[in-house]
């Protein structure tokens, strides 16, 4: 059979213009005594020279003739097709896919027709099955699985009618997304279409191919030509799909919703419409709407398994791990979906199994007292989803009080499952917080700001603390880490304790919640708890405060609201007013103004200040280079709070700046003895009792020539979280003084990795030692390339950027 095929193709090759004789007679096996069914491959093409060869090659050995209708190629599509032995009919493109396809059907002489697009191919192994299917069939047509490779790498399998008997009545309809199933069903009924195991691979929309945009634009144009009365559900569905491909999500959703109104659930494309609507809603982060939509269609379609997978994903995106896990279990327990329904091998870049693995250990059993999360916020659209996501798993309800957002923060909060309460802002923080408390219903309250996040570890810790909470304990002080720049690095953060987890009401019942916030600004709740006879204790639960990761404009705006509130509400209490304004100015880095405010505070009272007060005041003075004054303040403060390491560290900095290196050294050693200060008592900057002191002391010792001790300290510092980059800087300087190549030092200490080496490159760039910097950069790249995946490119890119930036600033005259 194969040889005969080859023979015919050979003949066609030599004589491409010759009219085809009836191919069926050529292929009749001499020994057979029943008629062979013949198969024609029909295609349309335009400028597909890159694709058509692959398509024809995949099918040529399994078909008896190939008809290609070319609608005006200007490349060598036609030649390629003729080379393979196709009959090419050259026509003019008339903006109508059905017209073109039907032209190919008109010329086909086989008993059965297979149609493929140029950017498709018959899957390997499907060919022989084809001949079997048509040999002795009781069907008029077959559904074939078309496998689409999406941009994310997953495969979407869509059943389509591609194989059918060559009957005059079976013709394509529709200018675009032409359907033949309609005419087949109309003539012979739905049961005349059978299932099979043939599959076709569609390459059309993966990123490797060029001209996707061209196809989308073409499709949109064709859809645009559709007359109003032809705009049915299928039309809107296809329009939505094209918008999706252009990533125009809102428009796509609009089309899908229109389509849904016009689509009955039993129509062929209805399931995939439901699927796409859901995924589009999820892309727009409208998870609540998506879940509602999915549940509705789950009710209609019994075993459309992917709907459950998507539901799981919605829960996952909102942080409801328990619910996601449950949903996933239900999905796995379902029987395989009916072949009608499209399935996708993975969503969001991972398979169902991978999600199951990821979810291991994340759901938290609900055997602890209920928690209401209370959040207030304004214009925090970027942050609010992360905040809510991080607490949904452990909070029974999330109360979000919106104090006048102009962005879509309230909508986002709603879609992530929160209860949203918009109120008017009166410049009173306590009032807003108390309003939130009033809406809560669970036993315990967890207060977060919209720009805060509860890290994963903290969830378990919270739950454990609550399970063991003694009845007298009214609330807990949590560890709030404020990261002062864009990074989440311990090297640059402040840690304070704040009472954020507390009982809502008195434990004996009583009227209304006992917990009440006080204070227009700088509001706190602990006092009200203690007043009712309960205790407040620290708990080792971290909350990450990501305020400084916002845009600078947003940070400034929030600061202004706070300052306005302070000025407005604290006119009587000058002391608190000045103190709070001082801290705001401090964080705005206006240290001179901040120092003035703090000085004013001192004048207003005889009482000594809080430890925080001294910290802010001293650091402001240091930043304005008033070292003597700072030293004086710090001496006084250390008398009161000798275990507040940060003060000792600041004093060392002041002395160092004044040139008193011996005093500085002593103080730094003291810091190391003390270790990092307890965050429960004080505002702490991590590292002042560890890596920061080590680095500073190391530098001082190196200057004195005590290299060994300095090196020791620096290496200790590299091991501590947050101390790494600074320590590498110190080591680079040290390697110079020791006249030992840096690589050697790093290797001895097991630190020869891309991150260290690129940190060294950065250090050299900062020191304007460009040659060295480039050398380390080369080294770091070699290491990255040599190492296994996953690779860390960030350190390299940062080093490159810094090197270029420092070089463009201009090489310093006389350097090196």
């Amino acid at each position, binding site marked *: 059979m194969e040889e005969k095929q080859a023979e015919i193709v050979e003949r066609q090759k030599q004589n491409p213009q010759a009219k085809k004789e009836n191919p069926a007679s050529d292929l009749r096996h001499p020994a057979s005594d029943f008629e062979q069914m013949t198969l024609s491959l029909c295609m349309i093409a335009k400028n597909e*020279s890159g694709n058509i060869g692959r398509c024809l090659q995949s099918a040529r050995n399994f078909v008896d003739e190939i008809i290609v209708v070319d609608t005006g190629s*200007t490349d060598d599509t036609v030649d390629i097709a003729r080379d393979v032995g196709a009959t090419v009919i050259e026509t003019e493109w008339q903006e109508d896919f059905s017209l073109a396809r039907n032209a190919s059907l008109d010329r086909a002489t086989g008993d059965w027709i297979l149609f493929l697009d140029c950017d498709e191919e018959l899957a390997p192994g499907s060919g022989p099955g084809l001949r079997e299917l048509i040999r002795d069939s009781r069907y008029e047509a077959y559904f074939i699985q078309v496998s689409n490779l999406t941009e994310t790498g997953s495969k979407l399998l869509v059943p389509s009618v591609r194989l059918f008997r060559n009957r005059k009545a079976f013709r394509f309809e529709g200018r675009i997304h032409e359907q033949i199933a309609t005419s087949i069903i109309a003539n012979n009924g739905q049961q005349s279409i059978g299932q099979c195991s043939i599959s076709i691979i569609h390459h059309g929309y993966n990123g490797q191919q060029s001209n996707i945009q*061209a196809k989308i634009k073409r499709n949109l144009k064709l859809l645009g030509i559709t007359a109003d009365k032809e705009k049915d559900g299928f039309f809107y569905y296809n329009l939505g799909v094209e918008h999706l491909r252009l990533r125009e999500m809102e428009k796509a959703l609009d089309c899908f919703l229109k389509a849904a109104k016009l689509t009955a659930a039993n129509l062929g494309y209805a399931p995939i419409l439901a699927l796409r609507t859901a995924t589009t809603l999820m892309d727009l982060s409208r998870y609540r709407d998506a879940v509602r939509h999915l549940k509705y269609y789950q009710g209609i379609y019994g075993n459309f398994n992917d709907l459950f997978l998507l539901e799981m994903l919605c829960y996952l995106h909102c942080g409801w791990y328990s619910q996601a896990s449950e949903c996933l279990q239900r999905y796995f327990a379902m029987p395989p979906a009916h072949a009608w329904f499209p399935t996708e091998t993975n969503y969001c870049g991972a398979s169902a199994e991978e999600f199951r693995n990821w979810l291991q250990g994340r759901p938290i059993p609900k055997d602890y007292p209920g928690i209401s999360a209370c959040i207030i916020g304004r214009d925090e659209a970027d942050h609010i989803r992360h905040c809510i996501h991080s607490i949904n798993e452990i909070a029974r309800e999330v109360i979000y009080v919106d104090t006048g957002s102009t962005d879509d923060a309230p909508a986002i909060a709603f879609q992530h499952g929160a209860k949203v309460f918009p109120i008017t802002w009166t410049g009173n923080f306590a009032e807003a917080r108390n309003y939130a408390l009033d809406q809560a219903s669970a036993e315990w309250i967890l207060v977060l700001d919209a720009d805060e996040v509860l890290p994963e570890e903290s969830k378990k810790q919270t739950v454990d603390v609550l399970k063991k909470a003694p009845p007298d304990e009214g609330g807990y002080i949590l560890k709030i880490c404020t990261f002062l720049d864009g990074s989440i690095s311990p090297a640059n953060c402040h840690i304070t304790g704040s009472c954020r987890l507390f009982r809502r009401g008195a434990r004996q019942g009583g009227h209304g919640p006992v917990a009440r916030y006080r204070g227009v600004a700088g509001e706190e709740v602990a006092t009200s708890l203690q007043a009712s006879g309960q205790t407040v204790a620290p708990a080792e639960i971290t909350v990450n405060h990501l305020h400084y990761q916002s845009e600078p404009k947003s940070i400034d705006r929030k600061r202004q609201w706070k300052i306005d509130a302070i000025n407005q509400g604290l006119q009587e209490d000058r002391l608190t007013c000045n103190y709070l304004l001082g801290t705001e100015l401090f964080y705005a880095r206006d240290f001179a103004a901040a120092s003035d405010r703090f000085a004013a505070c001192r004048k207003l009272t005889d009482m000594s200040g809080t430890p925080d007060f001294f910290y802010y005041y001293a650091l402001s003075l240091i930043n304005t280079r008033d070292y003597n004054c700072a030293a004086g303040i710090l001496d006084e403060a250390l008398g009161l709070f000798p275990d507040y390491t940060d003060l000792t560290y600041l004093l060392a900095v002041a002395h160092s700046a004044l040139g008193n290196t011996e005093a500085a050294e002593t103080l730094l050693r003291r810091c190391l003895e003390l270790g990092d200060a307890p965050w429960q008592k004080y505002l702490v900057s991590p590292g002042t009792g560890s890596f920061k002191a080590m680095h500073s002391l190391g530098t001082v010792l190196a200057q004195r020539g005590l290299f060994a001790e300095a090196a020791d300290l620096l290496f200790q510092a590299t091991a501590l979280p947050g101390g790494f980059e600074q320590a590498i800087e110190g080591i680079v300087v040290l390697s110079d003084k020791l006249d030992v190549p840096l690589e050697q030092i790093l290797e001895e200490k097991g630190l020869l990795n891309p991150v260290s080496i690129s940190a060294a490159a950065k250090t050299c760039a900062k020191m304007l030692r460009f040659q060295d910097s480039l050398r380390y*950069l080369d080294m770091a790249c070699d290491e990255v*390339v040599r190492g296994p995946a996953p690779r860390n490119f960030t350190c390299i890119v940062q080093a490159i950027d810094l090197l*270029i930036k420092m070089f463009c600033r201009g*090489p310093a005259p006389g*350097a090196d």
Partner: protein
Amino acid sequence: MDVSTIRLCVIVRDEEDNLAQCLESACGFVNETIAVDTGSRDATPAIRHANAEIMHYGYSQHAGQRREKTLRNISILKQALVERPGDPFLSYNLGLSFYALGDLENSRHHYEAVRQHLDPGDMFTAAFFRNYAICLGDLGDFEQALNLIDEGLACFPDYPDLYFIKGEFLFDLNLMAQAKNSFLKCLRFHTLPEYVTTEGVTGHLALQNLAEVCARQQDLDEAVAYLEQVLRIRPAYELFAQLCSLMRQKGLDEGDVAKYLENSFHLDHPAIARLLLDIKDAGYGREDLQQLEGALHSGIATAGVYYLLGTACANLDRHGQAFVYFAQAGLQEPGNELYAACALEQLANQCLLHITRMLDLENGQVELRKELFRLTSLRHKAQRLKQGLLESDVRSKKPEAVRKVEEKRRWERSEWRKSKQKS
């Protein structure tokens, strides 16, 4: 009876390679010849011809006139825009005019305005994509340029120039495999009369670029194959030189190369000799580098020496080393823009090497791609700055030695040309 006379009029600028031939071809058929040189900086002014009067006007006058004409056009167009605001054709022409003036930013501004009102049905739309893309490329904004080209291809999927320009951008970005695809696509199309096109885009130009891509990817045999195809259509000196260079890289010695050139292309011996000599001298070979390093070691550490060392290393693709040398030159003469530009270019080259190496491992990594565009753009700016400084002899800090070598090469080439004419 009055016999009509013919006067040949030629305007030239920087045509040392061609002018003589041009005049020679016509001199038997015209009564008089006038050639006007509008400001050549090459050897054109030195050319003499028996029957031609060659007049030299400096750069300022004639180019100034041209410039004034363009400025006048611009004001007319702007006036028309007031009457018909948003008219894309007017904006398009403004874009073209500013580009002609070398004012890339204004050119981009007006091209961008065209985009809002673009209609694929308009006559100039295809050309718009082509010309705007070229402008963006000149600005070094490769990311935007690629996006624009893709948009253009969406409307005109059979416009080979767009594939060609895309290929050139991808080449600059060092995305060789993709560049190759683009150029291959060019070859598959026939040029259509309705498109503004550069001749050769579906033929010899694409082949030439394919040869270069293959050479970069170290597919020397393929590169040679492409070059051979081009040379059969258009035998050009530079291409022969490239071919020789490739043959040498493949390991053939001079004798083999000579034999090959003789058999395949029927070049005569003087021509072959010139070629071999030229590629030997091309851009400071290794011997020059050794000499310069020797000078450095014996204490001659001037800015000029560092500059030459940098250039030599750059030509040998030793970007890191070149950067160091240029930076040293810059230290000797702080404020010298040329040294700074050269150094920055080489630094960018070296960093780009790393980025493309890493991209090979993890294709499509977002961070790396962003960095790729950024660095390519940076390098492009440094290159343009460098070109600008090198071209202006008046302000040039180019050392004498460099100028001398460049002159020598020019002479070699014109000698080769002359010898070709004789044979």
